[in-house]
């Protein structure tokens, strides 16, 4: 029994938090939007802090649910991300009459991600994946009076259901050829006959949709642009990180025997993803679309890291995801604050931001530097590690192209920095009130970027964790 509580403590705590939110909402007597946000953010803080307390290793229900120190660490990272998104969403939710529902839905997607990460069985993985996507579609459509937002929700749910169907077809053939849905059993029986290769290709396609890997990326920019900014931030950071981590464990442990097949897949898609993301990011004027394409390019770099498949790869990817989480949340956070206060979302509107809002401008600059991988920010080390991981296979031409793209990407990230610091406009953005909660979140993000970049012990910790599992 205590075993049960220890292994499932993240999930049980989060479920409890969701139930608390529901009860609070039911007992509501006309509470205002901002006091809701504060209350619910406290619950998310409890969720994050509670997750840190216990570490246990083992499995439940015949290996259907697995847990260990590495998974606990990953869940803590995701909980922290949810807390940051919750804090950053405060200005957006101030005037929204469904702020409690927003938090309930977003917390339930996190629950789905937890189960997906811990899954040792295809069914639990699938249910967790759907729980992590379906409420997000509802959240993307949360600006109820804007057609754009509904379109984003419709596109998200239809394209994710389409990809799930391919994933399921693949899983059905895995079941047919292996006779089991347990990850361990599948790993033992996968032999690489043609039908299994097909099944794997279908599963890979399903993941490619969810991770918006080129050529399955077409929904991403539209959804990010139409969805409310906190939701776009959550989609691009937290849900992407969770799916990436599961993708790694599916590739390395379940389909480890098919490495000869997935290496070329990853190589080609990584190349396409990096180049397409960069080319399109250059042409965007809307900050949300810009961040969407830049996050597509970042996924390409993550794939490069996964490609390495050596002992260090998983730790490297996890380290990069952590940096990416802080950097991208900071960028989305600043964009969200500006959008909530002024409604401006074009990069051209950011001209002269440094003069009126120096703190926001500096925050965005650090975040963009880190995303671009400008030394000595954390993003530089993250990308460097990813490239070295990919280079361990010896395809230096590919690594060269990826490195070249990293340099090209600096151009468009710095374009925004240039606009903020060196250009002026006739209608500059006025002084924007930050508010306490978003300020804390942004400060945490910046601290995260700086600490993880400057202190080596951070990477050491992650590295040791991944080595032992």
């Amino acid at each position, binding site marked *: 029994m205590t075993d049960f509580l220890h292994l499932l403590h993240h999930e049980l705590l989060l479920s409890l938090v969701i139930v608390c939110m529901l009860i609070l909402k039911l007992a509501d007597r006309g509470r205002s939007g901002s006091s809701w946000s504060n209350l619910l953010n406290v619950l998310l803080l409890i969720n994050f802090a509670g997750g840190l307390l216990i570490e246990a290793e083992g499995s439940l229900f015949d290996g259907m649910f697995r847990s260990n120190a590495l998974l606990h660490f990953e869940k803590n990272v995701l909980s922290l991300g949810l807390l940051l998104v919750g804090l950053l969403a405060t200005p957006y939710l101030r005037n929204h009459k469904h702020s409690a529902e927003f938090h309930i839905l977003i917390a339930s997607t996190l629950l789905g991600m937890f189960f997906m990460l811990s899954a040792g069985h295809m069914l639990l993985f699938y249910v967790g994946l759907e729980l992590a996507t*379906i409420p997000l579609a509802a959240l993307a459509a949360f600006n109820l*009076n804007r057609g*754009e937002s509904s*379109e*984003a929700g*419709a596109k998200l749910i*239809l394209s994710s259901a389409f990809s799930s*169907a391919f994933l*399921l077809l693949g899983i059905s053939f895995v079941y047919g050829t292996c006779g089991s849905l347990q990850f361990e059993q599948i790993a033992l029986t996968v032999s690489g006959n043609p039908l299994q290769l097909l099944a794997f290709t279908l599963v890979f396609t399903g993941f490619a949709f969810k991770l918006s890997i080129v050529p399955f990326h077409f929904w991403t920019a539209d959804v990010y642009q139409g969805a409310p900014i906190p939701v776009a931030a959550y989609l691009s950071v937290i849900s992407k990180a969770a799916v990436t981590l599961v993708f790694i464990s599916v590739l390395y442990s379940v389909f480890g025997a098919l490495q000869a097949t997935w290496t070329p897949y990853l190589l080609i898609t990584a190349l396409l993803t990096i180049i397409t993301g960069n080319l399109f990011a250059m042409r965007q004027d809307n900050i949300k679309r810009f961040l969407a394409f830049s996050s597509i390019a970042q996924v390409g770099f993550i794939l490069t890291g996964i490609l390495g498949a050596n002992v260090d790869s998983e730790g490297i990817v996890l380290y990069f995801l952590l940096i990416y989480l802080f950097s991208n949340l900071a960028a989305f956070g600043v964009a969200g604050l500006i959008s909530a206060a002024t409604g401006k979302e074009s990069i051209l509107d950011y001209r002269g931001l440094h003069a009126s809002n120096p703190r926001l401008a500096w925050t965005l600059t650090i975040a963009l530097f880190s995303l671009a991988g400008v030394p000595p920010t954390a993003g530089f080390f993250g990308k460097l590690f990813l490239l070295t991981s990919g280079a361990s296979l010896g395809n230096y031409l590919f690594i060269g192209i990826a490195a070249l793209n990293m340099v090209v990407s600096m151009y468009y990230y710095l374009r925004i920095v240039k606009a903020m610091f060196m250009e002026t406009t006739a209608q500059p953005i006025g002084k924007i009130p930050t508010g306490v909660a978003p300020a804390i979140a942004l400060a945490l993000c910046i601290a995260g970027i700086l600490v993880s970049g400057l202190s080596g012990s951070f990477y050491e910790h992650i590295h040791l964790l991944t080595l032992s599992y």
Partner: protein
Amino acid sequence: MTAIPLTHILVLSTLLFFIGVFGFLTRRNLIAMLMGLELMLNSVNINFIAFNKYLYPEQIEGLGFTIFIVAIAAAEAAVAIAIIINLFRTTHHIDAEQADSLKY
């Protein structure tokens, strides 16, 4: 009843899946796209049940998976339809092509 060969069932489900894919790719009406999706999910269900019955009848995992797919498909369809109705309310169309406020 084992007179029905497994491969024939698999051919049926494959054809049904790709009929659904065809519908999803060619339709521009969001509700019609949703119908294509339902066909795809149903064909996967047929696969699971056929594999379970023919190859691994000693357990019923495949049948269990089917039940879960049905439940999740229902939730998915409900959310999709709620979003489509709200889209219609704000823009008076439910056409993926006319949705040109978002373009590449």
